[in-house]
């Protein structure tokens, strides 16, 4: 059969399995049907719930504005899939084109999309993690349980890790008028994602909203009472606080363990794929029937020196899923590259934070509009004399401009005047990113070297 003939038959009556039934998985399924794929579609998901939206879990759900089970993702169209929800994938047989499932079953595919995402990194001390009142926040069930506990009015909440999730949880606690302590190993909140200059603003925000923020400390132990309820947390500076709820927000772990012996290039940093979303095998050879999308993928981006980027961004999951779906059912000459501009948002302490580009790549930062002191500003990040990223606090309407600057590799520092340029916007300063080899909470963008197999960069798990 000719290649074209094969593709034709595959599009008509082939079988596609999507492992991972969250944002990327659902959008890919919808895009496949939009592309005219009429074959069999199987959706495998380890959670029992239909696909739901995660950003509200650390915001509206914790505030009680939206119940955790009202977060189902809106459907763009019917997908006519066989749903295998509540059943984790446990293994992949590349040669046999088969995914094995936790219930002992197996599903066969002609083409496979892996969108298994990430999970919350648990508290490393298992006995302490098992104490009643110790939570992580990643899933709908996590959010429901945490909300239930916050509603009861604990006398103090401890959030471990001041990345975006941790900071949003702390913000929700303060909005509920709960006393909250935030412990961050780095020098400031958000320092891994946005650097020290902006991190300092985040720290001011937290303190202005009454957070007991402790930076540069580690939590050395969680102590429980005789009933197994968490009661006290000990810090590396010798202090301790009485707490009733602890939320562990130490970033995420990629869900790749099930692929350990599969021969795919999958590991703790995710699954390497090309810009067309095709997975690499362990030899660094690209596969033609296994695709990857969403948080679990890492792929090279031409705008950022072909670095392999892992992006835990909502928008990336959608865009990459659509590209993967298109490429799964297209001839090689019709395939498209995933060239999404990294961007994300966060809502915390009454401020809308948005970012484009890859801030952690930057060496310098310049506040081009507004003022850090007013917590309302636009900052451009520079890397070797070009604009590489921009962040806004309550000034998102300017981001389109900076996105274009990044796309055009515009010179840094920007030489032109702008509206609302302040004295602090005259000279760039060091962006203040921590040494990536030092553990902190995980940044939302991970840069991981140039080659698919990536032997030169050693993995440093961000343990607290």
């Amino acid at each position, binding site marked *: 059969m000719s290649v074209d003939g094969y593709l034709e038959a595959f599009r008509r009556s082939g079988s596609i399995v999507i492992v991972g039934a969250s944002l990327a998985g659902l959008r890919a399924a919808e895009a496949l049907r939009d592309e005219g794929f009429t074959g069999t579609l199987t959706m495998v998901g380890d959670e029992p719930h239909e696909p739901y939206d995660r950003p509200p879990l650390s915001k509206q759900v914790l505030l009680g504005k939206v119940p955790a089970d009202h977060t189902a993702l809106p459907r763009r169209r019917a997908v006519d899939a066989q749903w295998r929800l509540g059943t984790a994938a446990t293994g992949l047989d590349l040669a046999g084109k088969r995914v094995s499932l936790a219930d002992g079953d197996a599903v066969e595919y002609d083409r496979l999309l892996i969108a298994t995402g990430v999970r919350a990194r648990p508290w490393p001390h298992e006995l302490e993690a098992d104490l009643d009142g110790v939570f992580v926040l990643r899933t709908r069930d996590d959010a429901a349980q945490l909300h239930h506990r916050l509603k009861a009015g604990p006398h103090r909440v401890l959030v471990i890790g001041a990345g975006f999730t941790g900071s949003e949880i702390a913000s929700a606690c303060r909005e509920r008028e709960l006393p909250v302590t935030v412990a961050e190993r780095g020098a400031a909140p958000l320092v891994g994602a946005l650097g020290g200059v902006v991190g300092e603003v985040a720290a001011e925000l937290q303190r202005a909203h009454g957070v007991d923020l402790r930076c540069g400390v580690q939590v050395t132990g969680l102590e429980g009472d005789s009933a197994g309820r968490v009661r006290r947390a000990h810090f590396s500076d010798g202090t301790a606080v009485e707490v009733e709820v602890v939320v562990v927000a130490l970033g995420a772990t990629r869900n790749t363990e099930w692929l350990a012996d599969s021969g795919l290039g999958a590991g703790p940093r995710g699954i390497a794929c090309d810009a067309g979303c095709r997975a690499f095998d362990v030899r660094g050879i690209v596969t033609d029937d296994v695709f990857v999308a969403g948080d679990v993928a890492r792929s090279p981006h031409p705008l950022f020196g072909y670095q392999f980027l892992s992006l835990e961004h909502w928008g990336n999951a959608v865009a990459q899923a659509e590209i993967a779906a298109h490429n799964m059912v297209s001839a090689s000459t019709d395939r498209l590259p995933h060239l999404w501009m990294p961007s994300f948002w966060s809502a915390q302490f009454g401020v809308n934070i948005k970012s484009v580009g890859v801030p952690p790549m930057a060496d310098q930062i310049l506040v081009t509009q*507004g003022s850090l002191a*007013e917590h309302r500003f636009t900052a451009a990040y520079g890397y070797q004399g070009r604009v590489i990223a921009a962040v806004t606090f309550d000034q998102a309407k300017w981001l389109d*401009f900076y996105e274009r600057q990044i796309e055009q590799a515009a010179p840094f520092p920007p030489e032109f*005047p*702008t*509206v*609302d340029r302040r004295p602090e916007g005259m000279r760039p300063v060091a962006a203040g990113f921590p040494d990536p080899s030092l553990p902190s909470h995980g940044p939302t963008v991970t840069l991981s070297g140039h080659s698919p197999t990536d032997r030169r960069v050693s993995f440093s798990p961000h343990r607290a």
Partner: protein
Amino acid sequence: MTSVALLRQITDYANRPDPYPLYAELRKTPVVRDEDGPYLVSTYWEIKSLLHDPRVSSDARNLTPEAARGTDLEQDPNLPPAFIRLDPPEHDRLRRLAMRPFGPPHTPRRVFDMHGELTEIVSGLIDALRDRDAIDLVDDFSYPFPVTVICRLLGVPREDEKHFHEWADTIAASLDPPGTDEERQAQQESLRQARGDLAAYLAGLVEERRRAPRDDMLSAMATDHGPDGQMSPVEIITTAALLLVAGHETTVNLITNGMLTLLRNPDVLQRLRSDPGLAVPLVEELLRFEPPVQMLPQRTTLADIDIAGTIIPKGAPLYLMVASGSRDPQRFTDPDRFIPDRTDNQHLGFGHGLHNCFGAPLARLEAQLALTELVRRLDAPRLVEDPPPYRRNAVLRGPRHLPLTVSGIRD
């Protein structure tokens, strides 16, 4: 054809009924300098990028001295620029303060909660047309509806409307590019007068509301204390004047343009009648196809800007031809067709970026309600003349009258 001829033709009253072929001509050169100095930008992507460009200013003080000559730069101290003519951070502070009593996050339900009141006003105006077989949609409906709404929202007594109708018209007319030096002088003179009168009128009203606040925006602006503090009395007056004029001069055209477009497309009118839900995308398409604001003539540049192969020099007047951009075939398929359920419709009808229309949520709701009710209740409406007579204004463009015949008014 040169650009000189084009801008003159666009502002020429003879071309008011259909400026769109001129825009198509203009788009052949996305950025072009007019003989009188302004740079005209007519294509979608270029306009959009300039609306998000922090090197573009709305503050006339950033014009070069020669470009500023003849503008209203010598301000009346009673009515300094409102936030539409300011840059951040002043713009942001004033717009935030004005938004507090109008929209989210502080007052998220204001517009939503006006739904019942708007429906009542619409019904009352249409009820009053019973026993008429000829109506002027503008005088009988499109004008009184949004004016009643903006008056109630701000807390301006409706019976004073006869006073400020003329002031609002004069201020709106001043947006148009001036013609000869004498015209410019006369325009400046009447503008100063109108502004002074409006400011004096509002000053009295604000003082009244400060002493005895009611549930309206003037009272809120006069008494509110938020994180940004309070507006000064002069700031309240300029902001109220801006909202009052904007409420007078824009939605009226959106509704009239809408009805005109529906009568020119009877199949669409029929669809809206049987499916009121169509009003939502239909109003968006209207904002693209026949926008009430045709161009944004009040921008300038803080630096030389290189765009589409042309350098717009620092301090040059900049006209963003939004009605042209919304018909750009590089952005919209079949741009000259009215497609009421068009998806992918990020038109420029409300602008974009920082100065994105403040009243957009209200304007949308007003137009959706008005058009839905008009097509539901007017029995066999017919245009008496096409094109109808237009207002002089080229920037805020719309019919002065829209004479219709109807067979009756349904319940």
